[in-house]
């Protein structure tokens, strides 16, 4: 613990990240460039989220990390231990007990409250990148509010599949201005982005961008009048806890086509099971 500065990063780096976070909050949905540092983990493992968490954490915080909703994957466990060691924070798996939650690709099922902070790990922060690879062009498109290309992409989905087939990293418009990539969360989670009581911060380490949503911000998932946005999930109850309102993972259980659907949010599922809820496959 004493071998490192508090929360691993040096003070000057944290000041730089904190300034970027403040500008991000002042311009919701706009991607603020920042001088991303090398972290003791590879790109793609949450270096952006880790740097934002390092700039935000205080020793009094209770820290939770989820990876696709789960508290017990390698990525989640190692980031939790990283901040236990370098920031001396208490960690938890309970959503309600956490003050700072770092997440990879999910929003917890349990509604977040004021005083909580949700930090997203973002791989590609630019929603227009797969449509226009040049940064100079996408920057201009954001400046001019020229988002027609994104609607063409969604329209081509409809032309090809009969519906908008984009199921994750579904683009949103923030406060009627910036189109934003909500990170690869399932579109089931999109309705939770807007009007959230907690502060949402997004960190992309490799791409060197930070962006933010203040609480109670208007976030609209893009759509068309005749093909409006629709949140979707597997049409099953959770096999472990019986929940019908949570996002489900499909788990292959044998080599003869057997499968089951379970909550992706492990804390939500465990809490429900502890309260006596049982699904079809529960022990």
């Amino acid at each position: 613990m004493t071998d490192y500065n508090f929360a691993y990063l040096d003070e000057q780096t944290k000041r730089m990240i904190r300034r970027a976070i403040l500008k991000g909050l002042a311009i919701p949905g706009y991607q603020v460039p920042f001088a991303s540092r090398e972290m003791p983990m590879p790109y793609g493992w949450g270096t952006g989220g880790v740097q934002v968490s390092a700039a935000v954490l205080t020793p009094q915080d209770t820290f939770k990390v989820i990876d696709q909703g789960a508290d017990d994957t390698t990525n989640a466990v190692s980031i939790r231990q990283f901040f236990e060691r370098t920031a001396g924070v208490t960690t938890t798996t309970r959503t309600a007990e956490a003050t700072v939650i770092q997440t990879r690709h999910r929003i917890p099922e349990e509604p977040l409250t004021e005083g909580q902070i949700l930090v997203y790990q973002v791989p590609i922060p630019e929603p227009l990148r797969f449509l226009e690879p040049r940064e100079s062009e996408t920057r201009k498109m954001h400046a001019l509010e020229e988002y027609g290309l994104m609607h063409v992409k969604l329209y081509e989905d409809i032309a090809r599949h009969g519906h908008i087939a984009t199921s994750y990293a579904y683009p949103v418009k923030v406060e009627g201005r910036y189109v934003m990539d909500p990170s690869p969360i399932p579109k089931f989670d999109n309705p939770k982005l807007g009007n959230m009581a907690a502060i949402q911060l997004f960190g992309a380490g490799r791409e060197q961008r930070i962006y933010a949503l203040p609480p109670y911000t208007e976030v609209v998932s893009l759509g068309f009048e005749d093909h409006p946005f629709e949140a979707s999930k597997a049409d099953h109850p959770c096999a472990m806890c019986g929940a019908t309102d949570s996002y489900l993972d499909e788990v292959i259980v044998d080599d003869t086509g057997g499968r089951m659907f379970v909550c992706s949010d492990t804390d939500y599922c465990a809490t429900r099971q502890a309260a006596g809820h049982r699904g079809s496959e529960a022990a």
Partner: protein
Amino acid sequence: MQADILTGGFADPAHQSAQAFRHVMEAMARPGTIHALAGAVPPAPLSPAAGALLLMLCDTETPLYLAGELDCEAVRAWIAFHTGAPLVAPGQALFAIGTWNALMPLSAYPIGTSDYPDRAATLIVECHHLTASGATLTGPGIEKTASLSLPDLRAFQDNHAQFPLGLDFFFTCGDRLAALPRSTEVR
């Protein structure tokens, strides 16, 4: 004199900066809310909240403009020792600090470009009073409405009209602080 310059910073910079930032971030994320910001003992006329803000945000990479009577030897020396921030004219400033009247005119500060709206100045306005009453605020970070005592109305309406360009403001009074980002609508 010399001793005054060397004291008044954070005794435990890493932890105190982290705690100060959380208050400052909450203030910026929830415009109109007033937060306590202690830990710094800067020389007069700099307020403790403004001093803590400077310690937490400024370093050699952040050009700073001192407006009016804040541009004095004691404050210059304290900022030089504790932050190293280069002192510049308003047009080059990333941060500017002073009373509302001393900071005028607002047109002197960078408001960002349409490509990079984040390259805009943050103004720290030292106030004689700071209460949750007066102008009505709406926008991101505010569930319904919030109220804040503002030194002006028209200036903040004009600033918001430039969104996504514009200036962002902190208001400091003693050891308390509030914020008003460019995204907030003021009535």
